[in-house]
């Protein structure tokens, strides 16, 4: 994986020293909160409902066992023994004390990590497919491109005062696992008619209060043209973007206001202008970066032990049915470790669990770990012969939940249990839904189903693209949950449709159950997924199930 060069190392150390001095000056009163707030936010430190929260970046979701152990150490030493993995491929600590934060940042710097959020109206951390470098459907590992964009955009003089923040997501596979259509720029690797790798370039996606599906601005971009093309997009938006209103400043609004055809024309013109100024230095840099992401040595071995364990142990079989994904090398698998045990907080891992995952990665996984935006942890390269041992170790650490992609694999933002911006809680809703379906023993019968929950309109829980989305609101001083159906976060992204009036906290689980029962009654066969059924029959039968029978809806 990418390791810090001297510049990165010195930069991170200097930032820690600066922040230590700033904390001291805040405590002795020489800095006011108004002066200190932007400084702490730049270092990933938020003040939430009950405590401070420190957000630590996991660039492109890639993390090694030493770093994972350090997170465990931080959780135990400075927090309450756990950490929370988020949809942005970050980890959050919910209980740090102000005086300890410089020491935490120092401990992170020791393992080449940081909490620098590169906040402000700049190009933010690039997010990538969590199966990068391992997926069977992958054309190329997208992470070197993500790192190239990071190095090019950091301190780029033209892009320090953009109209608003700018987020890029990248996937090396045609199957989009990085929600590229919900980003300012999405890059999805595809092949040209003659087999060359390149990117489908998408602009203007986003969720939040004005959800928009990104639009294709270039169907095929050769990989060598990546930086000039992105620069052309950003520079067109830099001129057109609305600086008068922060809710209208994102490129999704610019694309909406000017139309994709006009934006496309301007971007292509600008691209022709600036392309010659890219002399090829970027391609040399890319080649250098790629060496850091070289594949581990994946040896050929027999998979008999795996097949035998599948025959002998039904619980191993069930886990391997749901939690494995196809690897590009025969005999290997990508393991998803579910952090979604029914009743647990989605995305939370204890220090002991972090250590177990680090150890398994070291012993069986070529020392590689990933954080997914679905709040799970990935072991990207495990030989199938080792899976029975991996499973046993996960089971001993209470990490062997077999529910990836099923109804219990719920994404939930922290909501009003932690977040100061929340309008309602989301974690207890996730817990109760997962427990209800666990009790009903229906999750495998229901099949693939993604529930996503946000505690306010900022949509950190991606509720708009949940097959079932839940948005927590405050209706006249009472928590109220609005449901959307039919959302999809893949390359065919769709924003879900609102069903109607929301439900009270004690009604929402029952409402979700009625939706799922309606699906089971309506589907043509067990093979027809929830999303396929919804697309075929539309919202009406689900509305009927929600509002015309059972308990009465609490009109909002």
């Amino acid at each position, binding site marked *: 994986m990418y390791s810090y060069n001297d510049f990165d190392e010195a930069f991170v150390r200097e930032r820690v020293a600066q922040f230590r001095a700033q904390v001291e000056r805040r405590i002795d009163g020489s800095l006011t909160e108004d002066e200190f707030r932007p400084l702490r936010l730049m270092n990933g430190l938020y003040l939430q*409902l*009950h*405590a401070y929260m420190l957000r630590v970046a996991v660039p492109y979701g890639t993390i090694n066992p030493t770093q994972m152990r350090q997170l465990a150490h931080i959780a135990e030493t400075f927090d309450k023994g756990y950490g929370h993995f988020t949809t942005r491929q970050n980890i959050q600590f919910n209980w740090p004390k102000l*005086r300890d934060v410089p020491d935490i940042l120092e401990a992170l710097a020791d393992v080449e990590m940081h909490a620098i959020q590169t906040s402000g109206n700049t190009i933010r951390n690039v997010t990538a497919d969590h199966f990068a470098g391992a997926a069977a459907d992958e054309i190329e590992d997208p992470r070197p491109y993500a790192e190239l964009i990071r190095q090019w955009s950091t301190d780029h003089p033209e892009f320090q005062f953009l109209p608003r923040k700018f987020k890029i997501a990248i996937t090396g596979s045609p199957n989009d696992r990085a929600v590229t259509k919900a980003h300012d720029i999405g890059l999805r690797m595809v092949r040209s008619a003659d087999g060359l790798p390149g990117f489908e370039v998408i602009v203007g996606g986003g969720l939040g209060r004005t959800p928009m599906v990104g639009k294709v601005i270039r169907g095929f971009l050769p990989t060598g043209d990546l930086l000039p093309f992105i620069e052309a997009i950003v520079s067109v938006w830099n001129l057109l973007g609305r600086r008068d209103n922060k809710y209208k400043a994102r490129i999704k609004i610019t694309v909406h206001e000017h139309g994709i055809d006009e934006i496309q024309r301007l971007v292509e013109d600008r691209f022709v202008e600036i392309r010659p100024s890219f002399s090829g230095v970027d391609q040399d840099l890319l080649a250098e970066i790629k060496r850091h992401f070289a594949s581990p040595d994946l040896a050929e071995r027999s998979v008999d032990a795996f097949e035998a364990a599948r025959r002998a142990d039904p619980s191993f079989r069930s886990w391997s049915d749901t939690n494995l994904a196809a690897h590009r090398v025969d005999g290997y698998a990508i393991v998803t470790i579910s952090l979604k045990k029914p009743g647990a907080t989605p995305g939370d891992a204890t220090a002991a669990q972090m250590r177990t995952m680090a150890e398994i990665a070291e012993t069986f996984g070529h020392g590689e770990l990933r954080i997914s935006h679905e709040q799970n942890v990935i072991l990207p390269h495990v030989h199938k012969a080792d899976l029975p041992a991996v499973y046993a170790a996960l089971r001993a650490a209470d990490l062997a939940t077999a529910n990836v992609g099923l109804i219990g694999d719920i994404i939930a933002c922290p909501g*009003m249990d932690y977040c100061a911006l929340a309008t309602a809680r989301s*974690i207890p809703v996730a817990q109760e839904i997962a427990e209800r379906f666990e009790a009903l023993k229906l999750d495998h019968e229901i099949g693939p189903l993604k529930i996503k929950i946000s505690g306010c309109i900022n949509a950190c829980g991606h509720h708009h693209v949940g097959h079932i989305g839940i948005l927590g609101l405050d209706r006249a*001083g009472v928590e109220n949950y609005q449901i959307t159906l039919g959302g999809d976060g893949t390359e065919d992204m769709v924003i879900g449709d609102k069903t109607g009036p929301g439900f009270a906290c004690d009604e929402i689980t029952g409402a979700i159950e009625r939706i799922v029962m309606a699906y089971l009654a309506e589907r043509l066969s067990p093979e027809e997924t929830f999303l396929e059924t919804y697309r075929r029959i539309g919202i009406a039968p689900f509305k009927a199930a929600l509002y015309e029978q059972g308990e009465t809806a609490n009109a909002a």
Partner: protein
Amino acid sequence: MPSPFTPKVVTANDLLQGDVVWLTADDRWSRDMREAELIEDEAHADIRLIEAQAQRSVVVGAYLADARPGATGPKPVHFREVFRTRGPSNYAHGKQVGI
């Protein structure tokens, strides 16, 4: 007729610990809402808020929250303020175990 004034408490987060605190009538910051000063007068509320906000190296983000009288002291009105007296609902962390 102007709408009647809803009683208030002054609340904030502690600068060093980050946890929730309430302003008492004798100018302390308490971790127990029941000790808070219940302010029934709008002009007095404004003054108490200004005094609280001036304590810049003790608390962060002081504001007035609706409250009502209870048998053992002021009680929260809005659910957000109820959660602030307790802590998160997913773990026994925060005030629900601290006090």
